[in-house]
């Protein structure tokens, strides 16, 4: 019927695209009907990590405690001049250009794959690429190599050449609020949407909508301000890159200028903690009646309260004339390593295991039966990292983050209090806070887990 109909018409390109969409939908439906169970039936984003054994939890907790006071003793010993480590690196502009081309190509492929590929989260290129390779991979790479995202951000690449002048001045009092809202939506889609965020077509629609929002934001507020305050990934990767020794802007030579940025950092901490915590038995015991979206929304308040308590204590101890707000913004960046370490400890196994499926998917990104790189038969090796490796990795990542956080807090202290005695006194509340955050992170990782409902 369809063929006959087609033969009698002059086919416009629009009709071709409709027919093609139909064709893809019909074939994908057929394939889904023929194989009701996905061939490779891994749940999307499933973590296979075992709870930390008790001895490793106690080890991590005691090491965090001992190392903290060792660090304080070391800081107190003599007058030391510290600087945040800085390695200069000149990027070859051809390399940057190559990366830009690659990033735009991957952006296009991801969107096409979501619309036209198979509609199964694990067999489609888009969800694995976006949620695992890009979101986790770029977070870790930014922490190590600095803010390369700023040079290859596809939305910025598209919008920067237009050199849009702002129609309105960005209301600076809002701070990083748009980015913070996007952050919440992103995490909600990642962990609480029951798989909605991993649906290929939905994901591509989302990315296109986000592109549209970025265009709109740039037209209204100008490219520069929008990408500074509004675009989520620029804010997020920008913050993490402040830890990198390759970064021009690090935790020491820049500072938090708005409370929304402090909330952003606290949400990075609390959302990861929440994701770990919500699959444990204690969570089910105490919180299973509550709405998880509200709990996620409330989670940074818990971390903020403790942080503010430490700041108030610091103000009392040092008799500083600085306001609590100034103090709390000043020390905000010292929490970045803890948030980064939580993220690595919790999600890195996902990148190592499920991230492998990108090897298979990339050979046939739009499910056309291609084998571009000869890897379309690659099978995920679940045994690549065993439980022992994951356990040790998690504990050392968290201890590493703790040490870096204490170090940064010390540097920030010296910047603020030239008086040594005052500096050391001010350090104590932050130290206690960090020990608490670190032990809380380890505690969550050590809790027995719960599957299904009660």
């Amino acid at each position, binding site marked *: 019927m369809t063929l006959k109909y087609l033969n009698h018409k002059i086919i416009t390109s629009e009709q071709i695209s409709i027919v093609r969409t139909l064709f893809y939908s019909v074939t994908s439906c057929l394939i889904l009907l023929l194989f009701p169970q996905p061939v490779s039936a891994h749940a999307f984003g499933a973590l296979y990590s075992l709870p930390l054994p008790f001895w490793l939890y106690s080890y991590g907790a005691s090491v965090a405690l001992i*190392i903290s006071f060792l660090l304080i003793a070391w800081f107190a010993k003599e007058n030391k001049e510290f600087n945040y480590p800085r390695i200069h690196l000149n990027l070859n502009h051809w390399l940057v250009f190559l990366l830009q081309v690659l990033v735009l190509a991957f952006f296009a492929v991801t969107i096409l794959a979501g619309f036209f590929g198979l509609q199964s989260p694990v067999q489609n290129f888009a969800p694995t690429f976006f949620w695992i390779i890009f979101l986790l991979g770029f977070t870790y790479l930014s922490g190590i190599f600095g803010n390369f995202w700023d040079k290859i951000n596809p939305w910025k690449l598209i919008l920067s050449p237009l050199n849009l002048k702002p129609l309105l001045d960005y209301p600076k009092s809002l701070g990083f609020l748009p980015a913070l809202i996007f952050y919440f939506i992103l995490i909600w889609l990642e962990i609480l949407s029951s798989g909605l965020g991993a649906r290929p077509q939905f994901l591509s629609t989302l990315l296109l909508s986000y592109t549209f929002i970025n265009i709109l934001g740039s037209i209204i507020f100008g490219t520069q301000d929008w990408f500074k305050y509004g675009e989520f990934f620029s804010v997020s990767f920008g913050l993490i890159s402040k830890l990198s020794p390759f970064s021009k802007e690090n935790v020491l030579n820049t500072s938090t200028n708005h409370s929304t940025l402090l909330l952003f950092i606290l949400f990075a901490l609390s959302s990861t903690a929440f994701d770990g915590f919500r699959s444990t038995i204690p969570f089910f015991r105490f919180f299973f009646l509550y709405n998880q979206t509200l709990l996620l929304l409330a989670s940074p308040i818990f971390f903020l309260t403790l942080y503010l308590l430490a700041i108030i204590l610091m103000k009392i101890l040092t008799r500083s004339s600085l306001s609590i707000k100034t103090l709390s913004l000043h020390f905000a960046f010292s929490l970045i390593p803890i948030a980064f370490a939580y993220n690595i400890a919790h999600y890195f196994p996902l990148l190592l295991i499920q991230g492998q499926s990108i090897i298979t998917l990339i050979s046939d990104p739009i499910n056309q039966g291609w084998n571009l790189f000869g890897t379309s038969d690659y099978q995920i090796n679940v045994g690549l990292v065993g439980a022992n490796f994951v356990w040790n990795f998690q504990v050392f990542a968290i201890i590493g983050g703790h040490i870096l956080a204490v170090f940064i807090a010390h540097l920030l202290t010296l910047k603020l209090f030239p008086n040594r005695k005052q500096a050391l006194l001010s350090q104590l509340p932050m130290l206690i806070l960090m020990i608490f955050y670190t032990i809380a992170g380890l505690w969550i990782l050590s809790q027995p887990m719960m599957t299904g409902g009660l």
Partner: protein
Amino acid sequence: MSKNNLIYLIVGVLVLSGLFYVLKPKSTTPLVTVSPSTESTTSAQPNSTKSFDLVVKGKKIASGSGDLKVTEGDQITINITNDEDEELHLHGYDKSVELQANKPASLSFTANLTGRFPYELEKSKIEIGALEVTPK
């Protein structure tokens, strides 16, 4: 690096490695809690055979806990009876077994991957429990 800094570094490394060595359990047999009714352990040796009898009613485990705790290398048999036609799928190991309503089915394999692997009723996409394989 000054002498003082070096001392702090050495003390730090000693604390890290010393505590690790002291706290790490010496015996290689991990503490496995045995849930009474669902499990019958035939031998306490490493690489033992373990079988679990699971009864699923209304998409939930009716027979005790759905958490199956074993040690790496164990021979596992999962006997499962469901009250409707389904398929059981074990993640990670990627093993499946067809379930016919109220007929026992079983899944046998060696636990050579360590970690926590949820298993689900594939058609209803409901996770009902998890296999926890502790390293030796």
